[in-house]
């Protein structure tokens, strides 16, 4: 009997069919990744394995067998035993997935007692044991902490500990590392790997990140629109994909080891220069410098990539460069002239395609803002220019009167680029412009930025956490850590022969697309840690 047997599964919400006739099997001790872009239905499948759609109004068809239990026909009591006891789920956002009001150890103990008839005391001891098992230092004491006292990585470990506490046969991990920095992600993936080796439990990994899948599983199932596109051993699917969509997907994944395809044409003019930038937040004891003594220059036609993990100060730096935030110390020069406050010649493309456009105004109106602010009054000329810009970024001129919600994330990001272009900028600072997008969309937006740069001689500052994306677009790269630039230089140099140990560590943590390379790197990381 297989551990998981899904046959002809369909899940519908209202008129939407999230999963459409999906079948697969997972043997005991095996590891399968469901890979797909947003809307592919992969998380819905994960929920269906635990019967989490019951009572929500979703229509579920087909059959789901988990360790012999028919999830759709199981009684409530059987389902409760299945949840946690047979199959345990690790959720994406470890902060919101834990109750903020109770100690972590108590939460694990509570879950443990649902499945094991033991005393409170024994359950607590078990909680400490599993916390220790997942590598929480000083587990006895930390078991009494509440979730907000843990770091993101530790919270994710705690969630895995909660799953372990019930000794399940199957671990379902729904984007378990998406909210984490790349170095922490590597640690969590290594932990999952070790636990699997030791306990022999099966793993169902849901992820949008092909690299994460390559690191962790034996088999991959690529999903799109609720259907399976390709299913097979991880080496085959990623190494020699048969389906066109898989090839497209893999082609769009940025590689950390490939240099920028078309390098920028750096001119001599320095269009943006920062010297000794420092920005402090908070008052009194809580005062800290988010950015500390950062100097950089950007020339016409080139791209400077700024890469760093969360909290490194990269976003603060970006906002200072465009003048949205005033530096505590230091100065920003635009075209050689000191500048405070905003300047239409230095524009920004924002991260969040939802909040970066006013939902109450048509996209045309948003794009026209810089024109109107400049004093342009001629409606026909404004419309004409906006139409031109819309077409330039790959949208239709007729989209002028549409509202943001009528567009997809990638299209909205294009609108944001058009708005930035409307100001005729010399520099565009892009703050994580593609991090909220699916990988295929990501590649398109990155390509668009490159085209525009060549065509208009734009200087780009590309701020991102994803090392591979930054390599894909940058001529020069600056690596930030704790508010400072720890290493800066030509992209190839920084990526091929990093000088700073932190850069090295970051690069070592980036998931590789080749499963064998991934295994080698895992061993290397282990040795590094030992």
């Amino acid at each position, binding site marked *: 009997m297989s551990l998981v047997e899904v046959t002809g599964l369909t899940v519908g919400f209202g008129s939407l069919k999230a999963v459409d006739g999906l079948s697969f099997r997972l043997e005991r001790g095996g590891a399968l990744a469901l890979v797909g872009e947003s809307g592919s239905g992969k998380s819905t499948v994960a929920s269906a394995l635990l019967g989490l759609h019951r009572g929500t109004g979703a229509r579920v068809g087909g059959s789901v067998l988990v360790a012999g239990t028919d999830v759709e026909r199981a009684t409530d009591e059987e389902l*409760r035993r299945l949840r*946690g006891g047979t199959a345990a*789920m690790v959720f994406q956002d470890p902060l*919101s997935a834990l109750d903020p*009001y109770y100690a972590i150890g108590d939460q694990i103990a509570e*879950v443990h007692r*649902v*499945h094991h008839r033991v005393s409170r005391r024994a359950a607590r001891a078990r909680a400490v044991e599993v916390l220790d098992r997942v590598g929480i230092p000083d587990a006895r004491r930390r078991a009494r902490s509440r979730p907000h006292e843990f770091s993101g990585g530790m919270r994710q470990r705690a*969630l895995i500990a*909660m799953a372990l506490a019930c000794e399940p046969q199957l671990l379902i991990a729904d984007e378990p590392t998406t909210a984490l920095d790349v170095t922490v992600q590597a640690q969590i993936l290594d932990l999952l790997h070790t636990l699997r080796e030791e306990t022999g439990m099966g793993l169902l990994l849901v992820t949008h990140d092909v690299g994460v899948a390559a690191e962790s599983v034996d088999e991959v199932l690529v999903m799109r629109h609720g259907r399976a596109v390709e299913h097979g051993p991880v080496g085959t699917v990623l190494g020699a994909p048969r389906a066109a969509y898989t090839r497209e997907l893999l082609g769009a994944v940025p590689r950390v080891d490939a240099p920028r395809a078309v390098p920028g044409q750096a001119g001599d003019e320095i269009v943006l220069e920062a010297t000794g930038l420092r920005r402090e937040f908070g008052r009194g004891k809580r005062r800290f410098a988010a950015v500390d003594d950062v100097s950089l220059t950007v020339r016409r036609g080139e791209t400077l990539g700024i890469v760093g993990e969360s909290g490194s100060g990269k976003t603060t730096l970006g906002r200072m460069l465009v003048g949205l935030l005033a530096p505590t110390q230091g100065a920003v020069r635009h075209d050689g002239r000191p500048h405070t406050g905003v300047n239409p010649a230095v524009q920004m493309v924002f991260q969040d395609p939802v909040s970066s456009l006013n939902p109450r105004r048509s996209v045309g109106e948003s794009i026209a803002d810089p024109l109107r602010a400049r004093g342009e009054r001629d409606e026909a000329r404004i419309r004409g220019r906006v139409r031109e810009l819309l077409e330039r970024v790959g949208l239709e001129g007729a989209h002028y009167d549409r509202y943001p919600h009528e567009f997809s994330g990638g299209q909205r990001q294009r609108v944001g680029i058009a708005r930035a272009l409307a100001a005729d900028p010399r520099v565009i600072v892009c703050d994580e412009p593609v991090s909220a997008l699916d990988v295929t969309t990501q590649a398109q937006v990155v390509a668009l930025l490159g085209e525009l740069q060549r065509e208009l001689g734009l200087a780009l500052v590309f701020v991102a956490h994803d090392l591979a994306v930054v390599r894909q677009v940058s001529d020069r790269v600056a690596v930030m850590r704790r508010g400072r630039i720890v290493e800066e230089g030509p992209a190839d140099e920084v990526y091929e022969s990093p000088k700073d140990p932190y850069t090295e560590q970051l690069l070592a943590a980036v998931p590789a697309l080749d499963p064998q390379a991934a295994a080698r790197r895992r061993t290397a990381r282990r040795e590094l840690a030992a």
Partner: protein
Amino acid sequence: MTGFGSFALRRLVGAVVTLFAISVIIYVVFYATPGNVAQITCGPRCSPAQVHQVAQQLRLDDPLWSRYWHFLEGIVVGQDYSTGTSVAHCSAPCLGLSYQTGQQVTQIILTKLPVSLSLVAGAMVIWLVLGVGTGVLSAWRRGRPTERALTAVTLAGLSTPVFVIGLVLMIVVCGQLQLLPFPQYVALTDDPEQWAWNLLLPWLSLALVEAAVFTRLTRASMLETLAEDHIRTFRAYGVGERSIVGRHALRGALAPVIALNANDVGSAVGGAVLTETLFGLPGIGQELVHAVSVVDLPVVVGMVLVIGFCVVIANAVADVLYAVADRRVVLV
């Protein structure tokens, strides 16, 4: 711990500043208005000589800030009042003297306070138990007949002013059915049983409206918590619905309820004024309404100050309690 200590301290300082600001505003509003302040203060029946005396007492010839300082000084260290023939000393905390009755405002308040406290405290117990209880029930039985019934009752409660509920209760219970005599206040120290029986209707009138507010809030905040991710986690681990609602959702819903209860003190005081007037309970509210109707300004100002102070302090205490209940503060 230190974080909490400093928070509590900061909140306390904030409350003191607020109290100070309130006293300034009240002073300016009532003693620096255009018109004959001395005449208004003394009351409509004062003779010109008395008015003159009051004007001197209030130092109306001095600049505003010095008058205010004098007023504060009176509160903190006490003050002598000359009524022409005799001199009355009003010891600290002195909120002034009623020129119409010759009584000290502090004294009036102290004699009336137990009545109002009895009323508000008792009603608060009822509205918290009733409101939070029905709120939880209503969230739990979402979409079922229980919830629909509770929703209708809550709507009725929200839409009936205190004095209408009070009137109806009084007429039906005391008048038509004659289940209870018309309430007459009996001090708790005299006869606890009679105290409770006589306050039952006033408690209910005041509590029913407030309870509706709490039902609504508790329900909303329970449903909000139930939609949170960590509830999904516990469901995905087979934790029973009883534990999810009773343990996790309720805990999450509690903080806003505490906060609202604090903020509601001001509103409850307003309700208490109406209840006391309606049932003829000799509390601060009834006295205030009386003082307002005969324009006894020192009494009005003194009471407004005291009530304002109580509300500010209740709010500060609740804020600290809220910080204890809130997830972000590390304490419990």
